[in-house]
């Protein structure tokens, strides 16, 4: 069976450094940090009191209050970015065959804010259950694609992928494969997360996963830097319209690029720590190249998982050097998490968008906050430090890895004329 080709025809983003695609790209190339003291809850007693929150977001500007209050924030983010991506794609939603349009979404946690509120109210009561009927449908991680399908009437494949911080990369890869196999013509994919809450921050603090640089939040996310001390929690969402190539051409859609392939692997090593030699990371990049029919020398740029944790960044770079050999020195390597923070289940989506936009604009966003290189990192690698770099990109790679040892990698390729 000949696989169909899949292209990107629409983008939407709501991030800590910009509330739509244009603002997001502007933030990325200008090295803007999204980190600031937490406003969503009282974090005074927390080890980490800052995060990358979405700013100036009023949900009622986008969704009627009656509908918005039935959604956890992660679903509200999903609706906003899906809308932007669908509009951006110029898909004729009234006349497209709704049975051939799917929604495959990524989310690592789901409605944790809703869960906290309901359970706290129950715990403070006399034991009588007074749970809101919307509690469960607000909380469950699969509800975001459900809402998107209900708004637009899309009746194709519809589900959420959960693989912690790799979730939305998994969603993109599933979307790619379902279109390749002919199950849908168009899939709205991406991911969203809203985990700047007491339970989430406290939980990740307990894992010693978060930076505690409370004195200087905007400098806290510093992948590959000697003084990095953990990731910075982020929130938001990103959406991509993936479309079968002929379908996109037939309707005269703007094509950003081709989704060349996806790679999947597991570390099979530890709950939260990466394999120290980057075993799973090596495998996933190799799998992805093979799936895309490309060789290492074809790749120009990698947006790393690069969360700014002491172990993860080094292991990932070891893997890059193993996969790419001498060609690693020709790559533009960057971590946009230095600016956006770590959006957990939405990371794969907004970082895939960063790769697509880097290709579109011929410009690689920087890895900001870099002062002193970790001595365990090869200084000959181009980590795109502190300033965006011009680069004609034909092939871009995006890595994401999740707690549990899930690894996902996506390759985007400029459409050949």
């Amino acid at each position, binding site marked *: 069976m000949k696989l169909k080709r899949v292209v990107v025809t629409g983008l939407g983003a709501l991030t800590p450094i910009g509330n739509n695609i244009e603002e997001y790209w502007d933030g990325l190339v200008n090295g803007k940090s999204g980190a600031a003291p937490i406003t969503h809850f009282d974090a005074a007693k927390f080890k980490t009191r800052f995060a990358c929150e979405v700013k100036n977001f009023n949900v009622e500007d986008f969704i*009627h*209050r*009656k*509908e918005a*209050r*039935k959604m956890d924030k992660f679903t509200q983010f999903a609706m906003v970015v899906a809308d932007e991506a669908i509009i951006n794609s110029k898909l004729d939603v009234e006349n497209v065959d709704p049975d051939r349009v799917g929604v495959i979404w990524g989310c690592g946690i789901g409605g944790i804010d809703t869960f906290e509120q309901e359970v706290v109210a129950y715990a403070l009561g006399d034991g009588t259950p*007074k749970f*809101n*009927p*919307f509690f469960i*449908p607000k909380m469950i991680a699969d509800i975001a694609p459900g809402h998107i399908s209900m708004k637009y009437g899309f009746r194709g494949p519809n589900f959420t992928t959960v693989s912690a911080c790799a979730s939305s990369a998994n969603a993109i890869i599933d979307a790619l494969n379902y279109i390749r196999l002919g199950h849908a013509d168009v899939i709205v994919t991406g991911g969203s997360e809203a985990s700047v809450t007491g339970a989430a921050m406290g939980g990740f603090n307990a894992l010693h996963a978060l930076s505690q640089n409370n004195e200087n939040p905007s400098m806290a996310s510093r992948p590959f830097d000697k003084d990095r001390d953990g990731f910075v929690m982020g929130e938001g969402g990103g959406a991509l319209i993936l479309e079968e190539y002929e379908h996109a051409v037939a309707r005269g859609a703007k094509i950003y690029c081709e989704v060349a392939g996806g790679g999947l692997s597991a570390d099979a090593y530890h709950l939260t720590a990466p394999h120290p030699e980057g075993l799973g990371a090596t495998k996933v990049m190799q799998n992805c190249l093979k799936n895309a029919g490309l060789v290492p020398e074809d790749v120009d740029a990698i947006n790393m998982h690069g969360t700014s944790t002491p172990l993860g960044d080094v292991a990932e770079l070891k893997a890059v050097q193993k996969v790419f050999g001498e060609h690693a020195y020709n790559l533009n390597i960057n971590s946009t998490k230095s600016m956006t923070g770590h959006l957990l289940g939405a990371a794969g989506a907004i970082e895939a968008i960063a790769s697509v936009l880097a290709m579109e604009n011929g410009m690689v966003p920087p890895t900001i906050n870099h002062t002193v290189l970790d001595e365990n990192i090869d200084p000959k690698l181009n980590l795109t430090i502190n300033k965006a770099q011009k680069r004609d990109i034909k092939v871009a790679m995006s890595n994401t890895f999740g707690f549990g040892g899930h690894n996902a990698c996506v390759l985007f390729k400029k459409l050949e004329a």
Partner: protein
Amino acid sequence: MSDIASRVKAIIVDKLGVDENEVTAEASFTNDLGADSLDTVELIMEFEKEFDIQIPDDQAENIGTVGQAVSFIEAAK
């Protein structure tokens, strides 16, 4: 309008996102005010909380309009 009626109205306006003028005594939650089955469950729970009463499921089934809600609550208080 009684105190109970105005509090019932406020809850409906808040939860269903409808205009105050639409919340008449005859208005049906599902047919006139756009409530689905989950919205109706939530309304009943809000009435229980606001007025500190219990509305058993078999009786909740008989509360389909604004007026029926007000009458039930007045009788229960």
